[in-house]
């Protein structure tokens, strides 16, 4: 914990301790001000509601990435698992599986895939990046092969049509009579749950211990293997959940639907101020990162920039935040 320069509690000490959060919040406020000043209809209820829905998709997928970053890993399989869940659920529904049961199957499989990611990454001394890259490609390739082997209702160009039950579509729709999409309410509930998990439970605290100093964590009997397995399993589940919500939003399955989430989940984690080296940060910060990215995307779209240009700009913006939050100590300090 950082202590203010004077050691006395006060605004300065508070800002020193929470300076990532303060900075992220300041950036968010500035972006909202800029957007409101330059984009017509920024405050329109429709725009706010649709932005919240987009934020909830990214926010739920970022839960997993945040947990992985806290223990010093990265999950690159999120876009692939997300896309696989998206087309896989359509296929299951087309096969006559009840939609609720189909969702349970998809979430369970995604959890198992994630757990495999975590277990293998741990076995390979934390090489989660390459493991998740390989597993993700294998899973999405396999799911597309399986989905397309069904004759007429097959996949073509990565898309699959099907009769999506109305309740799934309504879940992600922001044109509701209550004014807010159920997906946003689900995200709000998950925010509370995740923050409580990280701050108030033994498991949550053990993740910080593991990310901060794995050797010390093992000495106090925190199982690094179990933590990695559970955390990556959770990441698989949140990725699949996002894929299902996106299915409700778009109304048809598309294997490439997750592509933007490879980058945006990592960006949200970094912009919020969670260290990629592990042990520092939290999901509350990632929520700020998600909101910043969502507002930024609204502004960039408002200037009618193409998807590719947005990708390039966001990529360039991430490098300064890396310099703030992803640095390792100099070897001189480690001897």
């Amino acid at each position, binding site marked *: 914990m950082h202590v203010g320069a004077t050691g006395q509690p006060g605004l300065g000490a508070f800002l020193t301790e929470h300076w990532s959060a303060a900075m992220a919040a300041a950036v968010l406020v500035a972006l909202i001000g800029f957007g409101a000043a330059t984009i017509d209809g920024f405050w329109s209820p429709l725009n706010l509601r649709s932005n919240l829905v987009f934020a909830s998709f990214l926010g739920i997928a970022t839960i997993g990435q945040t947990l992985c970053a806290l223990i010093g890993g990265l999950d690159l399989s999120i876009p692939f698992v997300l896309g696989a869940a998206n087309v896989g659920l359509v296929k299951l529904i087309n096969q006559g599986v009840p939609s609720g049961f189909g969702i349970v199957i998809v979430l369970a499989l995604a959890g198992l895939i994630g757990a495999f990611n975590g277990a293998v990454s741990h076995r*390979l*001394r934390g090489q989660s990046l390459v493991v998740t890259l390989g597993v993700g490609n*294998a899973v999405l390739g396999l799911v597309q092969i399986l989905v397309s082997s069904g004759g007429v209702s097959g996949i073509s160009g990565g898309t699959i049509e099907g009769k999506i039950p109305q309740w799934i579509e309504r879940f992600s729709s922001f044109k509701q009579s209550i004014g807010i999409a159920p997906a946003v309410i689900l995200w709000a509930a998950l925010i509370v749950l995740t923050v409580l998990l990280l701050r108030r439970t033994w498991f949550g605290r053990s993740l910080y211990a593991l990310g*901060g100093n794995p050797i010390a964590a093992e000495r106090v009997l925190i199982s690094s293997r179990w933590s990695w397995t559970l955390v990556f399993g959770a990441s698989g589940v949140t990725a699949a959940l996002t894929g299902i919500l996106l299915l409700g939003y778009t109304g048809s399955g598309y294997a490439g639907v997750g592509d933007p989430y490879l980058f945006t989940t990592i960006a949200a984690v970094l912009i919020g101020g969670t260290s*990629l080296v592990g042990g520092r940060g939290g999901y509350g910060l990632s929520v700020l990162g998600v909101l910043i990215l969502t507002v930024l995307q609204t502004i960039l779209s408002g200037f009618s920039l193409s998807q590719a240009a947005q990708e390039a700009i966001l990529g360039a913006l991430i490098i300064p935040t890396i310099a703030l939050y992803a640095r390792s100590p100099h*070897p001189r300090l480690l001897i």
Partner: protein
Amino acid sequence: MPGNERPAVRVLAEQRALVTPVILFGVLLIISAWHGPHLFTSDGLAGAVIGAAPLVLATLAITPVALAGPAGVDLSIGPAMTFINIAVVLGLAPLGFSGPAAVFVFAIALGVALEVAMGTLIAVLRVSTVVVTLAVYLVLDGLNTVILPQPGGTAPAWLANWGSASSVLSPILYVPLAAFVLWTLLSRTTFFRNVRLMGANDRTAFVSGVPLIPTRIGAHVIAGVFAGIASVMFTGLIGSADPTAGASYTLSAVTALVIGGASLGGGRAKGLGSVLGAIDIWLISYVLSTFNFGLNASYWVQFATGAVLVAALVTGGIVTGLPARGWWRGRQRGMVPARPGR
């Protein structure tokens, strides 16, 4: 322990990283002989050389970064090759510089510039290679599509001619061979030993007086040279500029690197292993193309590449004898610089 072993055993132990790629190579050759004998005709071999050349060089390009460790995976290689490809076809050739010398010098200079920029960020800011190269991946991938929304342009005639795969004994074979000779020469220098030492344990390297920042940037310079050559081969293969075709080289090259026995912890990687790994990846896609998967072909390639990557990681971990427990000790040895506390 050394000294009382028979030389053959010791040689095998030293080369054990090559066991996986060699066995895989043999198995794939047998499958090819059975299911795709076209490979062994002179046309088939010529096609294999041009098909595999960009990947072989791309894998050689990310090998020094892996050597420099820790966790030195260069994810930017695919979009970087594409970026150079677009710059050569749309930027350099229209200016009138379309001779082999100009194209190679320009491509290598651009590759070195990109890699040095990344290497400087990584070395000076002490940020993980993965994060920097991922950010650069996104910047370049987006930029490529902004510059050139649709495939277009034509490669210089001599280069397109190389890509037409008319015979086995062509420049397209000599260039990768020359690159491999260059690699072999480089790998015998003191500088390269410093890179290996730094990758294996940066603290030991630091106290031994290895200048960490120049050494790391130097590793990226070598990476940039090979990335530039890889991009020229890639331009020859596709014969034009294409904003998206190159991005998949990232997954293929990383897979080839891992199959080739490189330790992602740093300090251990062989040029020969990387070359064999790249040829293996090309053979896998060749073998898959001999089956009649129709529209599913690309899904099969994606599945097979991912699955082989995971399989190589798991078996590679067993072959090179990672400890089953306590990988944190590996972390402490310098994979990710550990904190004081022991």
